[in-house]
C-alpha cells in the first residue's frame, strides 16, 4: 500500500459520506447518517445534525463516561479540594494526573494547598458491593480529613455505587456536619448515566453551583471583576489568559476550573460578568448564576490571537469604561506584532494545508480560528460529546428533543437570590450593547456557521470513520485524542492531540497562538513522514543485483 498522502483527493462530500456508511449494517448506517452532515451555507442557519445520542454498542467510539466528564474534566483541576472517588480502584487511577492540568500552588508558594498529585479512592471490594459501601466512605472521608484538613472534600460515584444504592449525599452531609470546618458534598456521576462525558459536566455544574458558588461573601477586591468559565488550564492555557487579563487590568475572580481553588468558586457570585470559553461543559453554571445573582454571560474564545483580541474587546465593551477599552487596545497593539511576525514566518509552510478536528464539545470550533490564522482549511470537524446547539447555535435549544438519557440528568430549578440578586446591567443597557453589535449575551453561534459549505461535520466520530476519512481526504493534520493518535499516525498523517496537547501548550492567548503555529508547522513539515518507505522499496526487489552487476 502506498502512503495515503500520495493519493489524490477526488471525492465530493456526498460520496465520502456514502463511503463512511458503506460497511455498516443498515440500522447502524441509518443512525450514523443523521450524525454526518454535509455543511451548507443556508440563509437562516445550517442543516440539522443529530447529536448527544447514544453510542452504538460495538462501534469503537472516542467517547468516555459521565464520571470522566465530572471528576476528570470539571473537578479534576481544583487544587485544594480533596477529590475522593467512591468505587473500585480503576476510576480513580485513570483520572490521576492524566489530563495535564497545570497547577500553581498559589501565593503561599510551596506551602500552598495542592492535592492535584494525589489520587484518593475508597477502593471498594467485593464485600462493599454486597453489603454496601457507605460506612467505608464515611471512614475514608474521616481519614482524608484527619490527614490533610482540607477546606472541602468532594465525593464521586462510580458505576457500582448507584447500582447498590449507596446514599453518598447523605453520608457527605453527615460528614460535613460532623467535621464542622470542611464542606463535603457528592456527585452522582456514575459512568452509565447519559451518553457521554457531557452528562458529567452537567452533574458537576449542578453540585458546584448548589454547594460552593456563593458560599463566601467576603468581598473580593478588584476592578472589572469577571469569572472565566470552561477553561481547564491544559498545558498552561489558563496561565496565559490570566497573564493577559492582568495586563489589561481585568480581575479574574474564578476560573472554572483550571488551577482553581475552593475560594474562587465560593466567591464567584461577586463577578460582574461571566466569560464562557467551553460552552458545552459549563454553560449550565453560567445560566444558573445569571438567574440567581444577576450576572450576565457572554461567549468568549481565547484560542487564536485574533479571537483573543476579539474576546478582550467584548469584555471591555461590556464594562463600557474608556479606561478599560483603551487599556485592552494598548495590550492588543503590544502583543500582536510578535504574533504577526510568527505567522509571517510559518505561513509559507502552512498555507493551503488541510486539517480535521474531532474533539470535545467546543475545541473543534475554537481551533478553527488558529488554523485559519495559519492559512489552513478545516475540511471536516465534529465533537465527541457536543449537543446540537454546539453545532447549530443556542437558538436551536428549544427545538432539541429531550430523550430519556438527557431527562435522567437533573435540571436545577433556580430562583433569584433573596438578598444577593443584583442585575449587573439593566435590560435596556444590555439591549443597547447588543444593538451596537459588540456584545451578544447568552449566545453561542456554534461550529457549523464557521465551516465552509461542502465540508463534513460529523458527531461522535468513530475509529472506522476516522480511518476512512483520512484515507479518502488525506488531511495534512488530524486532531483528536490519545486513543486516536497512533492509528492515524500509522497511516503517515501527523496527529495532534487537542484534549491534552500531547506535550505542548499553552495554545491560548497571544503567546499560545505562537506556540501553536510553531507546533503545527513542526508536525506538518516533519521530515519523518517521508521515511515510510526504504529506498529498495521504491524499485522492484530484483533490480538490486542487476544494478550492482
Amino acid at each position: 500500500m502506498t502512503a495515503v498522502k500520495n493519493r489524490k483527493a477526488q471525492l465530493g462530500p456526498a460520496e465520502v459520506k456514502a463511503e463512511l456508511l458503506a460497511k455498516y449494517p443498515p440500522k447502524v448506517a441509518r443512525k450514523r447518517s443523521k450524525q454526518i452532515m454535509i455543511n451548507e451555507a443556508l440563509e437562516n442557519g445550517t442543516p440539522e445534525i443529530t447529536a448527544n445520542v447514544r453510542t452504538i454498542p460495538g462501534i469503537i467510539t472516542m467517547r468516555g463516561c459521565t464520571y470522566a466528564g465530572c471528576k476528570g474534566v470539571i473537578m479534576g483541576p481544583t487544587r485544594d479540594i480533596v477529590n475522593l472517588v467512591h468505587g473500585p480502584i480503576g476510576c480513580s487511577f485513570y483520572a490521576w494526573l492524566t489530563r495535564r492540568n497545570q497547577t500553581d500552588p498559589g501565593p503561599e508558594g510551596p506551602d500552598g494547598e495542592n492535592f492535584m498529585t494525589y489520587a484518593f479512592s475508597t477502593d471498594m471490594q467485593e464485600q462493599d458491593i454486597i453489603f454496601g459501601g457507605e460506612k467505608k466512605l464515611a471512614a475514608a472521608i474521616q481519614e482524608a480529613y484527619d490527614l490533610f484538613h482540607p477546606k472541602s472534600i468532594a465525593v464521586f460515584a462510580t458505576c457500582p455505587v448507584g447500582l447498590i444504592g449507596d446514599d453518598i449525599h447523605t453520608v457527605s452531609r453527615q460528614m460535613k456536619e460532623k467535621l464542622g470546618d470542611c464542606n463535603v458534598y457528592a456527585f452522582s456521576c456514575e459512568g452509565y448515566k447519559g451518553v457521554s462525558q457531557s452528562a458529567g459536566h452537567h452533574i458537576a455544574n449542578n453540585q458546584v453551583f448548589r454547594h460552593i458558588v456563593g458560599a463566601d461573601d467576603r468581598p473580593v477586591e478588584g476592578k472589572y471583576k469577571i469569572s472565566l468559565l470552561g477553561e481547564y488550564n491544559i498545558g498552561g492555557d489558563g496561565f496565559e489568559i490570566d497573564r493577559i487579563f492582568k495586563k489589561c487590568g481585568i480581575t479574574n475572580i474564578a476560573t472554572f476550573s483550571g488551577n482553581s481553588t475552593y475560594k474562587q468558586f465560593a466567591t464567584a457570585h461577586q463577578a460582574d460578568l461571566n466569560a464562557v470559553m467551553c460552552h458545552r461543559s459549563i454553560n449550565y453554571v453560567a445560566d444558573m448564576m445569571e438567574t440567581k445573582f444577576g450576572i450576565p454571560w457572554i461567549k468568549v474564545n481565547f484560542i487564536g490571537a485574533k479571537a483573543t483580541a476579539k474576546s478582550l474587546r467584548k469584555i471591555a465593551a461590556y464594562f463600557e469604561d474608556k479606561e478599560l477599552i483603551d487599556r485592552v487596545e494598548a495590550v492588543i497593539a503590544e502583543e500582536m506584532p510578535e504574533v504577526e511576525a510568527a505567522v509571517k514566518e510559518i505561513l509559507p509552510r502552512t498555507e493551503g494545508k488541510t486539517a480535521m478536528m474531532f474533539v470535545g464539545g467546543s475545541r473543534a470550533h475554537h481551533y478553527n480560528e488558529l488554523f485559519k490564522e495559519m492559512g489552513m482549511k478545516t475540511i471536516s470537524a465534529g465533537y465527541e460529546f457536543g449537543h446540537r446547539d454546539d453545532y447549530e447555535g443556542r437558538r436551536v435549544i428549544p427545538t432539541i428533543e429531550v430523550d430519556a438519557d438527557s431527562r435522567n440528568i437533573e435540571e436545577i430549578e433556580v430562583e433569584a437570590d433573596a438578598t444577593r440578586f443584583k442585575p449587573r446591567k439593566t435590560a435596556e443597557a444590555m439591549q443597547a450593547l447588543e444593538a451596537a453589535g459588540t456584545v451578544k449575551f447568552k449566545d453561542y453561534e456554534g461550529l457549523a456557521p464557521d465551516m465552509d459549505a461542502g465540508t463534513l461535520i460529523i458527531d461522535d466520530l468513530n475509529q472506522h470513520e476516522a480511518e476512512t476519512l483520512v484515507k479518502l481526504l488525506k488531511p495534512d493534520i488530524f486532531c483528536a485524542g490519545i486513543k486516536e493518535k497512533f492509528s492515524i499516525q500509522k497511516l503517515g498523517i501527523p496527529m495532534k492531540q487537542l484534549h491534552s496537547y500531547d506535550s505542548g501548550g499553552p495554545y491560548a492567548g497571544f503567546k499560545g497562538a505562537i506556540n501553536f503555529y510553531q507546533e503545527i508547522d513542526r508536525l506538518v513539515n516533519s521530515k519523518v513522514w517521508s521515511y515510510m518507505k526504504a529506498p529498495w522499496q521504491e524499485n522492484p526487489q530484483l533490480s538490486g543485483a542487476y544494478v550492482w552487476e
Partner: protein
Amino acid sequence: MLLRHTPKEITERSALTINPAKTCQPIGAMYAALGIHGCLPHSHGSQGCCAYHRSALTRHYKEPVSAATSSFTEGSSVFGGQANLMQAFSNIFAVYNPEIIAVHTTCLSETIGDDLPQIRKKAIAEGKIPEGKYVISASTPSYAGSHVTGFSNMVKAMTELAEPTGKKNGKVNLIPGWVEPADMEELKRLSKLMGVGTIMFPDTSGVLNTPLTGEYKMFPDGGTTIAELKSTADSIGTIALGEWSSADAARELDSKHKVPCKILDMPFGLKATDRFIDALHKMAGVNVPEEIMVERGQLVDLISDMHQYFYHKKVALAGDPDQLIAMTEFLVSIDMCPVHIVTGTPGKKFEKRIKELTAGMPCQVNVRAKGDFFLLHQWMKNEPVDLLISNTYGKYIARDEDVPFLRWGFPILDRQGHQYFPTVGYKGGLRLLEKILTLLLDRKDRDDTEMKFELVL
C-alpha cells in the same frame, strides 16, 4: 514539593487508598487479549472503562489500541446488558471483522450479574457469531484483585480454545505473564536458541511495538494465533511465568488436558533466568547452547565488575507481585538491599515470599500487599533509600525526596524503550543493571565534591 501533604508520621488507614499501586481488572484483560492475533478486546460495561483502558495502554505503548465497548446506558444498567452485547457482536463482525472477540466484564456488568457464557450461547444460537469466528470471555470484576488478576483471568479464558487432537505437538506452552512486548520477543529468542518449539500466549510482540510504514493494521501481524491456542492442549508441557499472572491458565491446561505445568518466577535477573532456562532444558530435553552460557557469563561478569556500586545500596520498590518478587531476588543477589516494597495487588503470599527472599539481608524490610504509593513514600521519609524502582507515578516521590528513579513496570508514561528493550533473561538483566548503574553513578557524579570527582569509575 509536589507531594507536600504527605506526612512522615504513619497512621494506619482502613478505608482510604491514596495514590494506588494497582488499577482494576479489566485493563489487564484488555492487554492480554491484544496478545491474540486478530483479536478485538471488548469491554462489557459503560464506555468510560474502555476509553480509560485504551488511553492508559496507548500512553504506555505509544501504539494504537483498538477495543470495543457495550456502551451501557442507564437502561442497560437496570435491565441487563445482554441486548447491548448481542448488538455489539453483530456490529463488530460486520465493521471490523476480527478473528476473535475477547469479552471481559466490568464492575458494572458484574454488579448487575450479566452472565457472559449464557449471552455467548444465545449469540451462537442466533447466528450472531459468523462461522469460523470465536468469542471468549472472562469475568473481571474491578472490585476484586487488581489489573494483574484481570490479566490472569483473560489468559485463563484463552485455554477455552485448547482442543486436543490426540497427537502431541512436541512444543512447550510458554505463558509469559504481564511483561512487555520486548520481553515476549526475548523469551521467544531464548527458546529458539535452546531449540525448543514454543507456543507463547499471550504474545503482544508485533502488536504493541509495530513499525511505522504508512499502513495501519487494526489487527497487526503479531499475536498468538487461534490455531496455536487450540494446539496448547497437545503440548508436552507448560511453563508459566509468574504465580499471579500466569499460573491459573497453566493449571487449567493441566487439569483439563493433562498438559503438565511448571510455575516459575518471572525471569528477571540471574537466578530466575537460570531457573527458566533450566526448566526449558528439562521439559524439552534439550541442551543449553553455548550462546546462552555466554550471555549468562556476561551478566555475572557485570555484577562482579561493578559490585562495589551495588553493595548495600537501599532500594524502594512499587509494582506488581510477579515483577517485585523477581526484582527483589535479583537485587538481593547482587547485594543491594530492597527495604521498602509495596504492591497494590492483594495476596498474603506476596508478603511471605518477599520476607523469605530478604531474610538474610542486613536491614529491616517493610513489605505490604494492598499497599499504596502514599505508604511507600512515608516509609521512604522514615528510612531513606538510594534508589526508587516503580512505574511512572514514582517520579513525584523521587523528585520530592531527590532519589534516583528507575522506571520499571506499568504504566510508563514519560519515557521510551520498554516496548523495544527487554528486561527479562540475561540480556535483560544486563539492561537493568546498566540502567541502575547509570542512575547511581550519575548521582555520584552530581554529588561528589570537585576533589572527589573522578574520571574512571
